[in-house]
């Protein structure tokens, strides 16, 4: 079975994963039969509009950076998992989308990074609200896990993981010390 990094548990770990990622067409889905599937956002929307009966426990979506998902946000918030695609690890749009999903819209489910997901970006991704990481297939996932284990203890600015910037903590520490 396929493996991913689960960053929601402490300490983060490599775990087996049952979700099937569907990149393209409906045909792929039929092959998966009853599996839990991560559908492309646009396909998911079309299926819903067509009245398809989607199993709420076995249906997730993945977003590309271009997808405008705002109109569907209520349905998205009910999903158990949302994945965000990184077509290239240098394309940073996914960080902002993750941050917005977590903080602006309050998505509470599993937020997964897919695509060109590499060890050296995991710390930033985790800060922006990602909780699982589908590391690029040709990379050693056990090695990649170190990207979450050797993070920074100091975080100047707030993000999805902790909205409070360091300056407010410095202030509290000072008050506590007085």
């Amino acid at each position, binding site marked *: 079975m396929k493996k991913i990094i689960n960053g929601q548990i402490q300490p983060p770990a490599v775990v087996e994963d049952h979700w099937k990622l569907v990149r393209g067409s409906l045909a792929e889905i039929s092959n998966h039969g009853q599996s839990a599937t991560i559908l492309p956002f646009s396909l998911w929307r079309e299926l819903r509009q067509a009245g398809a009966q989607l199993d709420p426990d076995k249906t997730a979506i993945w977003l590309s950076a271009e997808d405008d998902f705002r109109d569907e946000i209520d349905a998205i918030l009910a999903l158990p998992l949302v994945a965000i695609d990184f077509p290239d690890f240098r394309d940073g749009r996914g960080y*902002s989308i993750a941050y917005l999903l977590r903080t602006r819209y309050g998505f509470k489910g599993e937020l997964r990074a897919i695509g060109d997901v590499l060890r050296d*970006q995991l710390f930033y991704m985790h800060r922006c609200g990602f909780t699982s990481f589908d590391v690029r297939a040709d990379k050693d996932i056990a090695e990649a896990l170190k990207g979450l284990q050797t993070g920074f203890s100091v975080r100047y600015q707030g993000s999805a993981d902790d909205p409070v910037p360091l*300056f407010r903590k410095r202030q509290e520490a000072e008050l506590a010390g007085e």
Partner: protein
Amino acid sequence: MYLYDDYDKSLIRQRVEQFRDQVVRHQRGELSDEQFLPLRLQNGVYHQRHSHMLRVAIPYGTLSSRQMRALAEVSEQWDRGVGHFTTRHNVQFNWVRLEDTPEILAYLADFDMHTIQTSGNCVRGITIDALAGVAADEAVDPRPFAELLRQWATLNPEFAFLPRKFKIALSGAEEDRVLLRSNDVGLQLYHNASGEIVARVFAGGGLGRTPIIGRLICDALPWQHFLSYITAIVRVFNRYGRRDNKYKARIKILLQALGIENFVREIESEWQHLKDGPAKLTETEYRRVAACFATALPPVSADDATTPLCHDKEFLRWKKRNVRPHKIDGYANVTLSTKPGPGAAPGDLISFQMQAIADWAERFCRGEIRISHEQNVVLAGIRQEDLYTLWSLAKPFALAASNIGLITDIMACPGTDFCGIGNARSIPLVHAIQSRFDDLDYVHDLGDLTLKLNGCMNACAHHQLADIGILGVEKNGEEWFQITLGGEAGNRPKLGKVVGAALKADQVAETVEKIVAVFLSHRRESEVFADTFERIGIAAFKAAIYSNKNGSSAS
């Protein structure tokens, strides 16, 4: 100066260890060149023509004597004894070995220095006025805000892979000395009618291939919202900036594509969600940071408040060009020129010069040194009575050239002698021009005249904002130089106009002479170049430059 506490120090240490591991993994082949590239860039490591280059941050241009000595040591131990001070508050070492960079970073960390985000598609170092906190025309000291923004930008998880680099400049003075409108974001700080600190926010400025003057997008942003408002700008940029073409990826292109109204609407609507959130700055934090920059200068008695009488013509000339008023009477701000003429590249300091500057700063101005974007060194808050001594000390170190703001105070990039992306060599041309202007009386008589020279379109030396701008371009494997005239930095920024077809390297210095000759023949009294140019236009210059088929076909 802002002093790093345990938080700041730990972050830098952890960053060194992270990079050390990345270098090892790259050497073992676990990280491809492609994957390693943005990691090393965001640690200031470039791969240049002959070697690797390390770009060290001098956050908002301020460093201590101790830090300056550390830079001298780095140049001695790991480089060839030279540091190149850039136009954006950084220093570059051009001859380092990649495998040594973790050691260098560890050494720098001992002195609270680092290379974080000195390159890459992220928020870069914040630039401010070299005279921040000491200029006579300053309303608000930008340094506390520059430090707060530095912290906000440092390892900001959301903004490490932007479409392109993002540059922020701050100024609190009447005169814009930081190119507010040639940055991605520029904040002009001032007091509103109720005496509160607010900022005019400019966005979408930039030089490079497509030079654009930044637009005003907010007239009076309260200081508490600086971080949240800039977050909104960078988030909009990160989501919607172009990623398909690196030359169209800066925020200036997004602003143009959306139009100013839509651009501002996007930012304002994003900001509404953030403005009163946890990123809102607090009075306590502002005071904590501002206190680090407060320097209490002892009052100078009336007797000592002036420079002792001195008839040394050379010194007086230096005082006229290189010394500016301090906001406290009896003190002055001194600029040491790194451009004495042929023999030294603009912005370069040899290790013993760095050490000497560190000594003088300790002796005369509490151990604080600033680097200006014109690549010179500023010592702020020098007692008037010490000026002569300082000048005498600086002379044998070739740091007393009296040419600030003059034609020989050339801003220049390192050019293809070092830089990997350059098209043309800069330094030999700088020297060729400086040699033609070696008569000091003549140069001083010319008055304020900016000459800026770039080896490529990237425009690190801001040639588009110079009276005389020179841009190196490559055509069929040959170096050509395009001349622009009439550019202006400051409060009324203006892009220079291309004068005509590009010239060959050996024609450039002579052409500069011709330009100056045209200026002199039309000059009224002691008019500065910019005013003469404004009055007579480009035609007369064009005629003089191309009169005897000097031009070429490589336009």
